[in-house]
């Protein structure tokens, strides 16, 4: 019989159950103490916490890799957008300072060195286009107009950053709960050891008094 009922447990924002801190072991275990059961449940909870910890650590690593990549892609698309805006002043309504634009940029296509293979690079000329192609993963690549691409990348970046923040928060919360559980396990175990010792001593005492009575 254990008092670890899941309905009364608090959970953190993302549904990780909070570990109960046992202020008083005897009170926690109740009138019919079953320390072995309690210890078993603690171990099970600890195993779950540790598993979640591993998962979150993995997710965090993945996110930390993706975020710089998204940032780079976003800044590239923004750069392309700027160049394009610089090259088509006639299409814009309120561009007053385009006459002061650097003429060498206008009308000259962009040459870039790109990666053909791990150790092999080649030169190419970028066409003047308003469409970029974004690799979304899982063999999916979509074409986007520049503004749509920029807003998509921005939202992806924000989502990734928020996820990362919440994953880090969860990891810290988990660390706390794991420590609490380990402390609980230690305290229940020690309490049990003490109780057994007291019981043995009491029985030894009673044995002696009975022998004294009989004898």
């Amino acid at each position, binding site marked *: 019989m254990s008092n670890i009922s899941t309905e009364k447990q608090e959970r953190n924002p993302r549904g990780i159950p909070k570990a109960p801190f046992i202020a008083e072991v005897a009170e926690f275990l109740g009138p019919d103490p079953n320390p072995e059961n309690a210890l078993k449940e603690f171990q099970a909870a600890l195993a779950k916490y540790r598993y979640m910890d591993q998962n979150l650590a993995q997710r965090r690593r993945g996110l930390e890799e993706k975020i710089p990549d998204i940032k780079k892609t976003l800044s590239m698309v923004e750069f392309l957008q700027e160049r394009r805006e610089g090259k088509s002043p006639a299409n814009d309504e309120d561009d007053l300072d385009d006459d002061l634009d650097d003429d060498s940029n206008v009308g000259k296509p962009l*040459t870039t060195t790109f990666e053909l293979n791990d150790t*092999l690079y080649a030169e190419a000329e*970028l*066409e003047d286009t308003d469409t970029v192609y974004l690799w979304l993963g899982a063999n999916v690549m979509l074409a986007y107009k520049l503004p749509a691409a920029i807003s998509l990348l921005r939202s992806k970046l924000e989502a990734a950053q928020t996820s990362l923040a919440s994953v880090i928060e969860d990891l810290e919360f988990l660390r706390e709960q794991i420590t609490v559980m380990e402390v609980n396990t230690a305290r229940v175990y020690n309490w049990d050891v003490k109780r057994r010792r007291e019981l043995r001593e009491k029985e030894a005492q009673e044995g002696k008094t009975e022998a004294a009575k009989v004898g």
Partner: protein
Amino acid sequence: MASSSSPQPQQVNVTDLDVPQLADVRRQLEEELSHLSNSYTQLRQAQAKFRSCIENVGQVKPENKDKTILVPLTNSLYVPGKLSDTEYVIVDVGTGYYVKKTRAQALKHYESKVEFIRTNLEALQETITKKQENMNYLINVLQMKLQQQASGGKDAKAG
């Protein structure tokens, strides 16, 4: 005992070693063997990469000059463009140096790399085979010793 420090059992008389030591040497040989096999696989992979580089260089040819290609700007961003320079490519020759070579020079460079790896692979293969033979010999001696022990033990019990 010299057995723990000698890498090749033939230099010490293997039949002098007793069973736990033989097991030790065998474990050592197995570790070395797996390490060598790993290195072999890695060399193979590197060779495959260089071969694909050769193919890629072949793609950067004048006939492809005006075809539209998708140019990768980052890991997930591609922009349509055209090959601007079909004579030169840039090759990473290691330690942070990038060299602009003609296609022919780049081809030669990658082919010599592939050749170099091939000679290394051959030498490595020989070493692996020799180690394998050593290990087989060792296992034979180990089995003989075990049989001896088993039969010797039986005699001792019976007698």
